């Protein structure tokens, strides 16, 4: 009887530990929904585009969202603007030089001002953003939505697990990352507004 109780207690403790453990979410999205939208609003011209080549891993603990860490990677060549010549320039040596710097990354180091309501956590994430080989520490507001057991609904029941949706709106300076700093600011704004909307999966 004693052995049975000990075994049950051990199993309960292990199950609780497993449930409370941080989960790893993979942001490579086979549905192609994940995207990063960029906007440069100069007095003479507005440039809008988006990137879809998103991958990366984020470790998230629903019981302790403040401990979230991870890295999001955007394939630089996936940046798209509707004008083909503009896209060629954007990918070119003077601008993003995607042939040499094929990835844009953000590595989250810490979360501050963390507030959780239900499944949604808002915080300010601080991390290192690397664009065109230049790394800068930035802080951005972020919203994390933990969707427990929703992976099945997204995969037509083929996989069981949870989803983590990350949304962030922030701005960076083109000149800070050496993206054609000589380009006239009346035509190409120095401020790049970024909107990140991504979902990661943690299968079981």
């Amino acid at each position, binding site marked *: 009887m004693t052995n049975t109780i000990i075994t049950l207690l051990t199993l309960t403790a292990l199950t609780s530990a497993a449930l409370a453990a941080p989960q790893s979410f993979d942001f490579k999205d086979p549905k192609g929904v994940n995207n990063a939208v960029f906007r440069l609003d100069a007095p003479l011209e507005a440039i809008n585009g988006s990137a879809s080549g998103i991958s990366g891993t984020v470790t998230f603990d629903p019981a302790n969202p403040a401990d979230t860490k991870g890295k999001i990677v955007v394939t630089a060549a996936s940046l798209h603007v*509707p004008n083909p010549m503009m896209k060629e320039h954007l990918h070119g040596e003077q601008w993003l030089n995607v042939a040499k710097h094929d990835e844009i990354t953000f590595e989250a180091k810490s979360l501050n001002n963390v507030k959780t309501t239900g499944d949604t956590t808002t915080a300010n994430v601080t991390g290192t953003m690397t664009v065109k080989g230049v790394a800068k520490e930035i802080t951005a507001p972020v919203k994390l939505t933990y*969707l427990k057991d929703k992976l099945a609904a997204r995969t037509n029941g083929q996989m069981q697990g949870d989803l983590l949706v990350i949304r962030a709106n922030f701005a960076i300076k083109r000149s800070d990352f050496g993206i054609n700093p000589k380009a006239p600011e009346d035509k190409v704004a120095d401020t790049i507004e970024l909107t990140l909307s991504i979902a990661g999966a943690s299968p079981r």
Partner: protein
Amino acid sequence: MTKTLRILALLLALAAAGTWLATGGNRGWTKTSVPVKTIDEITGIEAVRYERRFLPGLEFLGAALLGASLLGGASFLFNKQTNN
């Protein structure tokens, strides 16, 4: 020849203006793809997908009107040559 050039100039200008207006009168640069936004039901993420579509911009219209003007201008040269 003069008449042919003028008719061509007019046709070119009308075709360019017609195409530009028919595709929505895009006042930006010419686009070869347009964003189509959809909402992912599970995550609520607004996905951006690009559809291949030709949307002539102002530079397309400008280039066509310039070409039409050149054709029209050339017709006057032929006109003078014919008079001499």
